[in-house]
């Protein structure tokens, strides 16, 4: 029996770690007012892939971006708003329905400029309210939609060009047609599984005529191919029923990407740029007979460069001879393509699309790898749009400054550092560049904030930057004697150490370590990759146009991650699928990949997260998208890599690039997917999407700031996004979700004492959000409060009620902000507003009580206010400031009472004066003289003329008190001696006035006696509260 019992206990114990409580959470019922904040930046913006102009209204155009969704301007490009946040952010094309251009917009997702870092789409969307709401209209498996053509007379007839899958075969490619506005689609033209439709243009004068170019192309993790015998240009003249090749005049042999454009003002004029087998044939071809015959007109560099990345011709809507070609820069011809000029204007390279203003062709807009630019002079000069935070970060790291700074590198936009907060908001100009080229991983030195490390593509350079001196030293490891050629990934791993401040790691096929900030290097691993020679032919990459940029370097280490608990445990993941681990600081390495059963071979090991709680626990993210596998793969080991199990399920719709384990609760996991942020509260059993200000954007990397308890996301298209306080997420547990009401402990409420100097509105320029400076009250309710009263009050330590705040009523998390200031003082009524009436002293640091009353339920919680540890102002100084400002606060309120008293005296005096007709009595009373005396006193108390602007009157006592009060309040320390003296001056002035008022009251009493004697029933009020 005892044995059986023992066995039973053993079984229970064995089961315990896996007996995970399931916590299914619905994000939209829980997160509510817990919002992330976006900090951009927009200083470098990001890749713009498609622009769409309104056909008649030049105030409206749309910007489709590679990873940041769709943005709309309604004011000609001054400001832009994101209109596609809930949908996939990777855009192929945006198209306005000319039948209903203010309302009906189509978006085809999935970028068609197929670089190595390109993301994926998930179909076609339609809005019928100008972009406010979107409906998915199918083509879910299309991956990339290159064009949409809409019948000019019938909005229900729409054609969609599907370029299709980049990394695999697909039958979804081709031209699709709907006749019911997108409810159902028919594939009306298909070539094969490798060749997709890259352009689809409808003849502007005849919707039966369309041109479709087809492109044979393929990418994998280690090479790219453009071209084949199936690439071709087709034409239909019967609305898509039949298609024929129009190659008369085309070069022979294999063809690559072909772009086509029809001149809107002359539909017989066509242009095409052809990528061909022979270099001599590459270039711009023109047809003047609607595609029957073609003639090559130009083969300039800009016309033929990198067709997979730049392949668009746009014809001036008014002039068939004026064309612009997107390329490394812009290229413009005014003579039908015979000759060109560059229209780069010194702006960001890599142009992808243009639009002309429909009413004035001199006004142009271009989309580049560095955002959107506008020109008013036909493309000679360009002005950058500074309000598009489309920044495509690959990575993010943080330091320990206060406020902390964030660091990261971006696609074609270098490396940057910027503050996570700044009074008034984070401006574009607050960001500092710290690298060249494409930027990737940037790390601050853990103890020396002046030193950072950054890199460029393929580790062509790795820098150690002295930030304050603006010095950068190249510190990359070189091949040593006997070494093979070092292979670095395009996005090469670079990191500092959690355990040794001067340590730096770099990964090629080896792990290189430096313990002197990059001066000397040693290898601590053998080649950790599969070293498969077949995957190292990147020099031959590109297809018909060689493209050896380093973007296809393969069989490289991609991620290097130390255990936070043990400096000798280092994990490394390779792009060809290995998972390597050492438990002895690099002496011996074990490839544990063979133990991972559920993930296809050679799936890219994208990121490894060693646990914060257990040495043998780690999470590995595998990303299969470059093998055409879009499924999520995240594996967890709890035994150092011997066994693995999946922590993701079908709730995650797409591949994943990053995971973070919470720092306080190992059951909470954050997942950075290609389509947004997901959170699990039960170690990966259930996942829910976090959508509050986090768009469905690709999250390439995440980090947690331990001291701040913040989650920082590096998004590839919407910049840096931060959840400032993870406390509310960390408290979500089954028992909380079931309770009616629970307060959430938040991070300390620090009293904000900084001044915000005058800044002028920067309309059109992006400003990043900052954390609130107010005190936060956060609570969870399991039901929304709709009926009956609900109040939120704050009490000081003596039990005095000091604030009434409007509480949040939502089901889930509610955040209420308190500005910890007194009520504004009562201010005497005058002709104008007094500044002092809009400011009040802050409550001092200490303990306060929050009381929420909901029906007959009362919930209470302490709220602690603290001063910043960095403040230079002492407790004593603050106390003096508080006391002195409260003197003026009270004076302001007392003055208000005195003015009311005076107003009553004046009012009743005037009334009696007007009613007393007897001249004799009038003379005896001398009310006109009394009234004059009262007016003289009141004039000293408060301004009675002028306005709040340039008509201001000479300040009186109210204004003097008010100004001094506001000025003393604006600085949290001891007031200046001059200010202290001035308080005394004003006190004396006030005393003087008070004694005048006392005299007036005595006079009033005397006159009241006279009034009574003369049988005048009315009396002058000597006591303000008594009504006549």
């Amino acid at each position, binding site marked *: 029996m005892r044995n059986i019992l023992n066995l039973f206990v053993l079984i229970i114990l064995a089961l315990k770690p896996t007996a995970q409580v399931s916590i299914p959470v619905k994000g939209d*019922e829980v997160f509510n007012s817990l919002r992330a904040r976006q900090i951009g930046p927009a200083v470098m913006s990001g890749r713009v892939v498609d622009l769409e102009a309104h056909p008649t209204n030049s105030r409206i155009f749309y910007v489709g971006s590679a990873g940041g969704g769709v943005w709309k301007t309604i004011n000609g490009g001054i400001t832009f708003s994101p209109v596609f946040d809930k949908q996939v952010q990777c855009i192929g094309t945006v198209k306005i329905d000319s039948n209903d251009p203010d309302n009906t917009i189509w978006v085809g997702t999935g970028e068609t400029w197929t670089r190595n870092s390109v993301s994926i789409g998930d179909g076609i969307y339609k809005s019928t309210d100008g972009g406010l709401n979107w409906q998915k209209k199918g083509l879910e498996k299309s991956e990339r939609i290159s064009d949409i053509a809409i019948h000019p007379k019938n909005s229900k007839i729409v054609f969609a060009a599907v370029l299709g899958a980049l990394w695999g075969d697909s039958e979804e490619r081709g031209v699709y047609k709907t006749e019911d506005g997108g409810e159902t689609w028919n594939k009306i033209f298909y070539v094969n599984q490798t060749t997709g439709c890259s352009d689809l243009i409808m003849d502007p004068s005849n919707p039966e005529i369309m041109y479709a170019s087809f492109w044979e192309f393929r990418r994998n993790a280690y090479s790219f191919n453009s071209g084949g015998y199936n690439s071709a240009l087709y034409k239909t003249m019967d609305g898509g029923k039949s298609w024929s090749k129009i190659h008369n005049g085309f070069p022979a042999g294999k063809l690559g990407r072909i772009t086509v454009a029809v001149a809107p003002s002359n539909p017989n004029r066509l242009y095409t740029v052809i990528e061909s087998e022979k270099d001599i044939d590459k270039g711009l071809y023109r047809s003047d007979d609607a595609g029957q015959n073609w003639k090559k007109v130009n083969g300039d560099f800009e016309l033929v460069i990198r067709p997979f990345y730049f392949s668009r011709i746009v014809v001036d809507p008014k002039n068939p001879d004026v064309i612009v070609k997107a390329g490394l820069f812009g290229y413009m011809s005014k003579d039908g393509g015979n000759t060109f000029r560059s229209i780069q204007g010194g702006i960001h390279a890599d142009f992808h699309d243009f639009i002309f203003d429909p009413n004035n062709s001199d006004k142009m807009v271009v989309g580049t790898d560095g955002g959107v630019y506008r020109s008013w002079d036909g493309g000679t000069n360009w002005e950058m749009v500074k309000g598009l935070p489309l920044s495509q970060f690959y990575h993010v790291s943080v330091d320990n400054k206060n406020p902390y700074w964030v660091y990261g590198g971006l696609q074609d936009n270098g490396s940057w550092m910027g503050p996570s907060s700044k009074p008034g908001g984070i401006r574009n100009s607050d960001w500092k560049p710290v690298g060249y080229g494409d930027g990737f991983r940037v790390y601050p030195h853990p103890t020396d904030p002046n030193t950072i490390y950054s890199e460029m593509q393929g580790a062509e350079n790795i820098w150690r930057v002295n930030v304050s001196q603006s010095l950068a030293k190249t510190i990359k490891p070189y091949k040593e004697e006997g070494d093979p050629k070092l292979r670095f990934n395009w996005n090469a791993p670079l990191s500092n150490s959690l355990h040794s401040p001067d340590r730096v790691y770099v990964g090629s096929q080896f792990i290189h370590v430096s313990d002197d900030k990059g001066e000397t290097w040693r290898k601590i691993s053998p080649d950790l990759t599969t070293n498969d020679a077949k995957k190292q032919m990147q020099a031959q990459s590109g297809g018909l146009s060689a493209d050896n940029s380093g973007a296809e370097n393969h069989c490289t280490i991609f991620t290097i991650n130390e255990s936070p608990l043990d400096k000798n445990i280092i994990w490394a993941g390779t792009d060809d699928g290995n998972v390597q681990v050492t438990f002895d600081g690099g002496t011996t390495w074990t490839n544990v990949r063979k133990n991972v059963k559920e993930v296809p071979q050679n799936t890219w090991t994208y990121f490894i997260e060693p646990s914060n709680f257990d040495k043998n626990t780690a999470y590995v993210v595998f990303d299969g998208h470059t093998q055409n596998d879009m499924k999520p793969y995240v594996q967890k080991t709890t035994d150092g890599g011997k066994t693995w199990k999946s922590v993701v399920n079908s709730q995650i719709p797409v591949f994943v690039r990053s995971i973070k384990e919470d720092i306080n609760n190992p059951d909470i996991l954050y997942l950075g997917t290609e389509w947004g942020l997901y959170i699990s509260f039960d170690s990966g059993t259930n996942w829910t999407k976090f959508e509050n*200000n986090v768009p469905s954007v690709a999250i390439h990397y995440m980090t947690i700031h331990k001291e701040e308890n913040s989650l920082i996301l590096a998004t590839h298209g919407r910049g840096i996004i931060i959840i400032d306080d993870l406390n509310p997420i960390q408290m979500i547990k089954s028992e909380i979700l079931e309770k009616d009401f629970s307060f959430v402990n938040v991070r300390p409420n620090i009293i904000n004492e900084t001044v915000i100097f005058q800044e002028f509105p920067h309309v059109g320029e992006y400003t990043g959000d900052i954390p609130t400076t107010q005190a936060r009250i956060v609570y969870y309710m399991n039901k*929304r409060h*709709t009926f009956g009263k609900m109040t939120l009050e704050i009490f000081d330590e003596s039990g005095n009620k000091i604030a*009434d705040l409007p509480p949040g009523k939502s089901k889930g998390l509610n955040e209420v902000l308190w500005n910890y*200031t007194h009520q*504004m003082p009562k*201010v005497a009524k005058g002709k104008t507003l007094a500044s002092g009436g809009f400011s009040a002293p802050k409550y001092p640091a200490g303990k306060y009580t929050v009381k929420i009353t909901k029906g007959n339920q009362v919930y209470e919680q302490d709220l602690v206010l603290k001063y910043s540890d960095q403040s230079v102002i002492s407790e004593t100084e603050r106390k003096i400031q508080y006391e002195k400002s409260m003197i003026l606060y009270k004076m302001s309120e007392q003055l208000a009472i005195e003015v009311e008293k005076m107003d009553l005296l004046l009012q009743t005096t005037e009334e009696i004066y007007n009613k007393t007709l007897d001249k004799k009595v009038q003379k005896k009373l001398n009310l006109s003289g009394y009234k004059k005396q009262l007016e003289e006193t009141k004039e000293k108390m408060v301004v009675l003329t002028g306005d709040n*602007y340039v008509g201001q009157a000479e300040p009186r006592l109210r204004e003097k008190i008010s100004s001094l009060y506001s000025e003393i309040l604006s600085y949290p320390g001891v007031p200046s001696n001059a200010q202290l003296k001035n308080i005394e001056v004003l006190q004396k002035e006030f005393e003087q006035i008070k004694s005048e008022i006392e005299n007036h009251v005595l006079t009033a009493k005397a006159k009241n006696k006279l009034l009574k004697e003369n049988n005048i029933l009315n009396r002058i009020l000597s006591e303000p509260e008594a009504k006549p």
Partner: protein
Amino acid sequence: MKLKNFVFLFVLFFVNTVAQSQTLDEILNKYFENIGGREAISKVSSTKMTGKVNAQGMEFPTVMLSKGVKNKISFSFQGMEFVQPCFDGETGWQTNFMNMKAEKMEKEDSELLKSQFEDFPDAFLKYKDKGYKAELLGSETAEGTDCFKVKLTKKPYILSGVEEENATIYYFDKENFVPILTKSIIPKGPAKGKYQETVMSDYQESGGIVFPFSITSKFDGQIAASISIEKIEINVPIDDAVFIFPGE
């Protein structure tokens, strides 16, 4: 298509439409029932609401007067009254903060106010007679709560000569059948085309009618201002003169 199939489809379509409209009617019936009944509401000719506005950390007493299409919202601070705005049935006006004088609003703004206030006492009351269209758009979570989404479309605005849709989406809490959120498209200005959100709660009875005593306005997901109503008086006499533009 065979006739039988056609008839079947037709019936399905018809039944579906009926079910839809019934549901919408049901929602509105329950709504009116829960807030005091159509009859009681149609007898409301004026309201006076007193409370306070909380915006940017400051708090101001406010009075809101409604009498048919006439409406006046005023705040007071430092003993002065600021009207923001008032509509007398024809003209909208408000106090200029610099010189504290009343100034007329742009004519288009007056039209917008008219469209906003002519629904008094309730937009859904006899909405069909008013030429409005209501549609049930389905269910959606708002304020963490499962809601019916009802779109009410009114006569379009004419702004700068262009017709613009004039619609509000109401989120009726499925448990209480009262709106807890509305979304309407901002018709003009820099934020044109975006949603203005209004969150309602603290429904309480006053004079036989149930009103939301807490109203919060949100923009881009952030709170812009909250109104806490302390008192609602129904059918109190309000002199028409208070709505009239006071002149220069």
